[in-house]
């Protein structure tokens, strides 16, 4: 007996009992839908987080000085760090929360006082006007570059270069508007005011720089540069616990690890529901074999071999389960597009997940069909013919 004939027979047998077939498939449908949806959402959120981190730049290193109040880096230290081979730019940052006012409106925002290098190091560019210049630092100009949230909040528009704002009561003029970045894990990057470092030291009453960003020329020298910076700071403070160094690659791999574990756990749970679906298939196939004992007897009497009967029932359960898999995939597409809209996660169903789900559901059918099919195949033709 050939394969296409067996598949045809399986389909007609499944169609002759639609309701039962559907209920049997339901387990696999739910399992596959769950696998597809969870993996797609898992991969989608991983992708989203990775993209956010990557947009900060994979060649970015963040250094925080911790410990005693009087520990900080000087301009000279920064000059030395900038000369480490592989470093392309460096930007010291003083930061703090401030209240920003314009006219009768005010908003709280995060302030960063820094140098022109910040633009390159943090990959933040202006969409309108200009960024800070060395001259602004040298002259301690009261100029500010603001994010779009600040502009929207205070002015309700974005073409506000030249307008005046007051930061903690000190008047600044706006020289540039930052490009919109969207929110990230660290909160909104658009609710931000950037002023010259020197001006900021005076405004915040603090001259100690305890945070600085370093960007490397290439992503693959990051580790080497981190090592140099650590050596330098350890020597300076005589304490290797007095500072913290982060880089994006580390962060990225940590987060990837976490989300991969999460995705695997979720798909494991979904896999269990597939297993339950498989047991449902085995159950109904056993019932079907009993019901069709006479048919099996007739088929054997007219020449069906053990293998023919085995293949017939195996294909039937594989088709049943595979069909459930296909329906589950379709339902998964619907579920993913629905959930990704509601949860605001960009989720994409990858081709290999679809292939995996299809293969898995067919395999479930074959594995759980094996016992009923071999039971059918080993029936004695006379007993089967006599069965009422």
């Amino acid at each position, binding site marked *: *007996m*050939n394969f296409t*004939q067996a598949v045809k027979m399986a389909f*007609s*047998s499944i169609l*002759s009992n639609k309701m039962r077939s559907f209920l049997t498939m339901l387990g696999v449908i739910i399992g596959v839908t769950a696998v597809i949806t969870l993996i797609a959402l898992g991969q989608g959120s991983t992708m989203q987080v990775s993209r956010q981190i990557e947009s900060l730049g994979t060649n970015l290193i963040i250094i925080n000085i911790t410990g005693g109040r009087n520990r900080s880096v000087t301009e000279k230290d920064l000059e030395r760090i900038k000369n480490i081979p592989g470093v392309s730019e460096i930007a010291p940052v003083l930061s703090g929360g401030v209240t920003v006012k314009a006219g009768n409106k005010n908003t709280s925002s995060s302030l960063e006082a820094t140098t022109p290098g910040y633009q390159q190091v943090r990959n933040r560019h202006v969409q309108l006007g200009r960024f800070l210049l060395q001259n602004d630092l040298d002259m301690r100009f009261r100029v500010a570059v603001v994010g779009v949230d600040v502009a929207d909040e205070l002015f309700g528009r974005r073409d506000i270069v030249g307008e005046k704002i007051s930061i903690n009561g000190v008047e600044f003029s706006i020289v540039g508007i930052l490009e919109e970045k969207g929110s990230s894990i660290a909160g909104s990057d658009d609710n931000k005011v950037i002023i010259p470092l020197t001006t900021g030291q005076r405004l915040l009453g603090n001259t100690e720089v305890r945070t600085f960003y370093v960007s490397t020329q290439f992503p693959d020298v990051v580790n080497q540069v981190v090592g140099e910076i650590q050596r330098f700071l350890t020597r300076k403070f005589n304490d290797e616990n007095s500072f913290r160094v982060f880089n994006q690659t580390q962060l990225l791999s940590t987060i990837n690890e976490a989300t991969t574990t999460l995705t695997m756990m979720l798909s494991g749970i979904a896999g269990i529901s597939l297993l339950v679906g498989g047991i449902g298939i085995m159950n109904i196939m056993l019932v079907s074999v009993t019901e069709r004992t*006479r*048919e099996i*007897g*007739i*088929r*054997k*009497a*007219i*020449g*069906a*071999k*053990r*293998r*023919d009967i085995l293949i017939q029932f195996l294909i039937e359960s594989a088709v049943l389960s595979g069909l459930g898999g296909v329906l589950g995939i379709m339902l998964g597409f619907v579920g993913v597009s629905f959930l990704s809209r509601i949860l605001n996660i960009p989720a994409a169903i990858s081709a290999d997940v679809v292939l995996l789900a299809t293969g898995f559901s067919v395999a479930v059918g074959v594995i759980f069909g094996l016992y009923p099919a071999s039971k059918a195949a080993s029936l004695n*033709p*006379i007993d089967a*013919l006599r069965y009422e």
Partner: protein
Amino acid sequence: MHSRRGDLTDPEFPQTTVDEGRYADGINEKEGAFGYMIRLENLSKIYRMGDNRVVALNNISLSINKGEFVAIMGPSGSGKSTLMNIIGCLDVPTEGKYYLDGRDITSYNQNQLAEVRNKKFGFVFQGFNLLPKLTALENVELPLIYAGVGAKKRREEAIRVLKMMGLGERIHHRPSELSGGQQQRVAIARALVNRPSVILADEPTGNLDSKSGMEIMQIFKELYSQGNTIILITHDINIARYARRMIMIRDGQIVSDEEVEMQ
């Protein structure tokens, strides 16, 4: 005592048109060492039910020639159904030898027996035993599917035998849409479609009214006159009279074996 029909050179004789290639797997058409198509030697069948031994067949020896029309008769429980099951390779004897076309098939395994059933026998049962979800055509095609015949040839052959049974108009009907007589004719078509050496009919008229039963028996008579070998199992003497040789069985033993006048 045997009726020996010799020269059957009728060109319509179905099994002579079978090409030898279909039996390339070791079962050939040549008559065996004894010259009989079917030869049973000292055959016994004993069932064990707990501690009880039930002797269904007791030391039966029997030969049947090509082209014979044999009725095996006996009351219920006589062992005639067991005999038919063994002849039809649905069951295996406990003791003794069974030569089919000169080959000892008592040592055959289940798969080999399935192949023998498919190629050598056509079964007609009392309860028709058609598959209810398949059409007449699909039912008749089944033996050819298991014989590995291609779809086109299968359809042609099935339609040919269904037409022969006068069912050319009903090939797409399901068994439930056919009368008992028509269902039995579909079953006969299914038995014939593989051009078997032997047609085995177990009470073929048992579930039919007398008129349909007569029609079915006329078909068997016709098949016999075309040279087919037919073995008929019945308890009804009026049905058995259609055959040319009557074997009586009682308590698992042959009590008589004689020729019958053509009706």
